[in-house]
């Protein structure tokens, strides 16, 4: 929303936006190019480039026996976490938008998982889910639901479900607040007018509130999509992607191939594929949010 160019300086935009652009180019764009370049090079275990090797790294990646399962798991990871996060956040935001005693305290409580470091949140969850000393086993045994303690993170499928639970747990607060912001922008008189029209609660929600929330929902869904796809600390701190590679996503797999298996070329290939996926997510976002029309 530019309001006309008043008093443009002698050098135009450069002194104003130049420093920010340079920092972004050097620390964000350069690594991206470096990563893509690396994916087409033979890199030895010490990280030294041995020269161009075409698509060999990509061939190695495709033949990586852990790749197919990891791709499937990543699709499940992203879709389940994002969809459940949005579905949970909608009613949570609606409730927190209402007035009730203690609302401030509840809003404070829901900020905590958002503000706290995700890796520390992952560690407390890991401790609560511990097979020997975990509080979840104690609770479930006290309730008579479990007879024997369970090593929740020891079995890949079970572990993966809990990883998704934690990912949802840390994504809901942000999403809730974006939706809350959307709710706040809906003027009270619209709600009052619709109430006078006799629209009942659910109908009013579906036909008036929900459409007005769409921009907020869209933004939070796409940001979640990208964040969840990129999510690293939860998996790394709770299972390390293990046992073996059984709870890895393509993001943690790329890291593991590089920093554990020392195959930097193949890792760069995996990361480049991830990079392209994110670019696709971003372009979808630009398209559905009609970025060009609304921003300039």
């Amino acid at each position, binding site marked *: 929303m530019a309001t006309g160019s008043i008093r443009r300086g002698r050098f135009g935009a450069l002194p104003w936006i130049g420093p920010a652009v340079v920092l*972004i180019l050097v620390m964000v764009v350069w690594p991206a190019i470096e990563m*893509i370049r690396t994916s087409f090079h033979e890199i030895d275990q010490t990280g030294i480039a041995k020269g161009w090797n075409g698509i060999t790294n990509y061939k190695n990646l495709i033949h990586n026996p852990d790749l197919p399962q990891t791709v499937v798991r990543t699709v499940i990871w992203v879709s389940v976490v994002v969809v459940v996060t949005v579905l949970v956040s909608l009613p949570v935001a609606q409730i927190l938008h209402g007035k*009730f005693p203690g609302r401030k305290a509840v809003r404070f*409580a829901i900020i905590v998982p958002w503000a*706290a470091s*995700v890796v*520390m949140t992952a560690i407390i969850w890991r401790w609560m889910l511990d097979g020997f000393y975990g509080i979840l086993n104690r609770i479930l045994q006290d309730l008579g639901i479990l007879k024997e303690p369970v090593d929740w993170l020891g079995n890949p499928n079970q572990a993966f479900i809990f990883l998704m639970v934690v990912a949802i747990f840390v994504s809901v607060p942000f999403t809730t607040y974006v939706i809350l912001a959307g709710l706040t922008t809906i003027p009270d008189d619209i709600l009052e007018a619709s109430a006078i029209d006799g629209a009942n609660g659910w109908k009013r929600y579906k036909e008036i509130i929900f459409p007005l929330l769409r921009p907020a929902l869209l*933004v939070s869904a796409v940001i979640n999509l990208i964040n969840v796809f990129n999510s690293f600390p939860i998996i790394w701190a709770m299972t390390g992607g293990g046992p073996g590679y059984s709870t890895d996503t393509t993001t943690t797999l790329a890291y593991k191939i590089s920093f554990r298996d020392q195959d930097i070329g193949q890792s760069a290939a995996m990361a480049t594929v991830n990079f392209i996926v994110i670019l696709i997510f971003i372009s979808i976002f630009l398209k559905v949010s009609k970025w060009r029309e609304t921003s300039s």
Partner: protein
Amino acid sequence: MTMAGSSRKRFTGRKVSLTIAGWVIGAIFIAPYLYMLLTALKPQAEIAAIPIDYLPSKWTWSNFTEVWKIIPLAGYIKSSFFIAFSATIIVLIFAVPAAYYVARNKFRGRTAFLLLVLITQMFSPTALVIGIFREIIKFHLVDTYTSLILIYGAFNMAFSIWILSSFFASIPVDIEEAAWIDGASRFGTLRRVILPLALPGLVTAFIFTFIAAWNEYVIALTLISTPAREPLTVGLTTLIGQYQVHWNFLFAGSLIAIVPVVILFAAIEKYLVGGLTAGSVK
């Protein structure tokens, strides 16, 4: 009469269920951190008790003073604070002029610039960690705070430009024009007129960047190799790899790391909601 009565009854019924639902939600989201606190307050012997107890038998508040001796917490905090604060200052110094110019001017390349900002906002450093690592090796900046400060600054620039430019755009141009007529320079106007009005935006950008840098994990894990230089997130998690994990001290340290940022975050709650809509829902 009956209608008014029944509607009031429904209203209070609704209020009760709303209150219960609200409190349950709050309890769910705070519970892991309360358990963190309970574990932090247990004496060492009770950490590995089978079956584990809900509450400490002896509330060992001294864990919060002992923790500084058992793990190098002060060093972690110093690293984290220095890195996060420096990155935040860089972001503000670079983002304020850019955001102001974008909010006030149409110029060639404006769309390209905004697109660059938006795309970097969408990227977390995790996605580029392999490229970052190779670049930092080339720059001979491995195991330095400088590397982390520059990376955190660059990746959080977008959010701040976004938030700030929408704050600046919402300030009427008339106010600036009045200052110019009084003979103020453009920079002077920015400093004395615009920045105070955009204070909520500045605070939001500051706290967001600080917390993002304070909480960052994967880049710090990758680039910092000297244990003494590790920031909180990396330092505390490496303790888990050790033979005997002092979970009580680990969580005491985590709480010391978490509580200040939660309070900072809550302090901008009022602006957070507005700032988020202004920043993301254009």
